């Protein structure tokens, strides 16, 4: 029951819904950047939504299956192939032992999620299997996967496994699929000039009116040195408020920080727990998955909404997701 890494890809890490409750010790949250695709991939193979998946970044890995497995890929399109044959995303597939699972470059979106029915047999650290790269713990040995790594898998538990997964896993040979799939429009990928919604940040009022007006509307481009810690944006420089740095305090994922250069940095899943730049705005939780799918070079614009609107959008999306999850459970249940 294992998965062998033949080619690591650009950055392949084990992630779940993050490590919560330890930020007061400086422990970062980590977790899947695109939480929606992660949850959908898990739902498709009958896992709990906080089971670990592999997060593949921009250029995916090549993996060899040590056992029969039911898998699902969601998120960015990375030209997934099983023994050379295209593997469709957004639907579960039974893949036989010995199969080579190959991913290419992301063409739409930046991150894909690979879920395995049963999940990965890795110990949770402080309640999570997410990789804490900066701390060197969690996930697989606290680091990104490398060539030659063998990742142990858990077998799906009969009791908790949907019937379609059981049926699939009994398919005689080769790759097998159920007759249905989830519409990929359930989890939108960014378009050119994607609009990202944000709410006013903690230091919003200390920025000049002009800066506040400029922020929403002008185009920004994602720079090359953007990563899981933060997205560095390039565009119209925003005037930092007088006084410059603020006292370091607890930060939020999605915080749009304005350093003295005026080029904003959006904090992402691997952000430090605290920070000392003024926070102009915070990306709405409902749009963090979209933000996470932006690749270096992509353009975006910010649109300002209220916290109330943000919560309403989030609740509406969760209702939609719950309907999809219900439909999935109903399949052959």
């Amino acid at each position, binding site marked *: 029951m294992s998965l062998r890494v033949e080619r690591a890809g650009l950055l392949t890490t084990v992630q779940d819904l993050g490590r*919560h*409750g*330890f*930020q*007061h*010790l*400086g*422990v*970062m*949250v980590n977790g899947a950047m695109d939480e929606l695709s992660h949850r959908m991939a898990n739902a498709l193979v009958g896992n709990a939504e906080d089971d670990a998946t592999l997060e593949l970044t921009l250029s995916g890995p090549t993996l060899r299956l040590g056992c029969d497995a039911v898998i699902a890929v969601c998120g960015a399109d990375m030209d997934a192939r099983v023994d050379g044959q295209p593997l469709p995303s957004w639907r579960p597939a039974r893949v036989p032992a010995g199969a080579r699972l190959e991913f290419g470059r992301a063409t739409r979106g930046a991150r894909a999620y690979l879920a395995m029915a049963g999940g990965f047999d890795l110990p949770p*650290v*402080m309640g999570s299997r997410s990789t*804490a790269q*900066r*701390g*060197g*713990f*969690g996930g697989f040995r606290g680091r990104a996967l490398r060539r030659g790594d063998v990742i142990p898998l858990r077998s799906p538990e009969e009791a908790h496994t949907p019937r379609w997964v059981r049926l699939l896993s009994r398919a005689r040979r080769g790759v097998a699929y159920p007759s249905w799939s989830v519409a990929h429009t359930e989890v939108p990928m960014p378009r050119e000039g994607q609009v990202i919604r944000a*709410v006013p*940040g*903690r230091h919003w009022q200390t920025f000049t009116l002009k800066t506040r007006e400029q922020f929403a509307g002008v185009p920004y481009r994602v720079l090359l040195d953007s990563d899981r810690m933060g997205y560095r944006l390039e565009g119209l420089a925003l005037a930092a408020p007088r006084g410059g740095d603020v*006292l*370091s*305090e*607890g*930060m*939020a*994922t*999605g*915080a749009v920080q304005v350093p003295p250069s005026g080029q904003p940095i959006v904090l992402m899943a691997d952000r*430090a*727990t*605290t920070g000392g730049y003024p*926070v102009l*705005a*915070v*990306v*709405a*939780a409902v749009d963090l998955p979209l933000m996470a799918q932006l690749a270096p070079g992509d353009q975006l614009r910010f649109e300002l909404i209220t*916290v*109330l609107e*943000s*919560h309403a959008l*989030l*609740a509406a999306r*969760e209702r939609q997701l719950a309907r999809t999850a219900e439909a999935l459970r109903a399949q052959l249940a």
Partner: protein
Amino acid sequence: MGDSALVVEFGQRVDALVNRRVQAAAEYLLAHPLAGVTDVVPAYAALTVHFDPLDVLRRHPGHQAFDTLREAVAAALARAPAAPRRKPRSHEIPVCYGGSHGDDLAAVAEHHGLEPEDVIRLHCAPTYEVHLLGFVPGFAYLGGLDLRIATPRRDVPRKVIAAGSVAIGGEQTGIYPSATPGGWNLIGRTPWWLFRPEADPPNRLAPGDRVKFVAIGVGEFETLLKAAN
């Protein structure tokens, strides 16, 4: 702080009394968790309370998640004591200064027109106080640095800094608990571990703790490092 966190401000500057109130509030909220709250992060003068908006909305249908939580936090903080219950601990941390363990010691000395020995003496003299844990797991921001050795951060941060490195960044000093990038000036290294996820608690230093540095030689560093691993 956005749609999933709120910040309680206790003051606007680094101040021991304000910091203690922040710690007391964090301690209280961690000991008496509020429904929907996922993390409580004390800093110098502010407390950040992270929450799951969906969880709060589910518990209070028809209400506004942010207002509901703000009221709950305010009510809890009204009950919180002004000083933390936890008694601060004192630590004497051994540090091997200079050489290959403190690449920037000479530069820090030169910056201030001092000898490296002076920097070591001035760094070992004060009793520091842990103001907050942040940046990476177990990184303690220490207050109380002698301003005669306060040194601006490096223009270009290092890509990797060895675990245990003792450094000066502006008017603060601290220890890098794990190998990370960083922009502070490295003056020495401790063989102690500062953060181990499997330990209980995983952090060796906690907010409010007192720290003194004790200079040790290379030989003792190696011996202690072996004993620690």
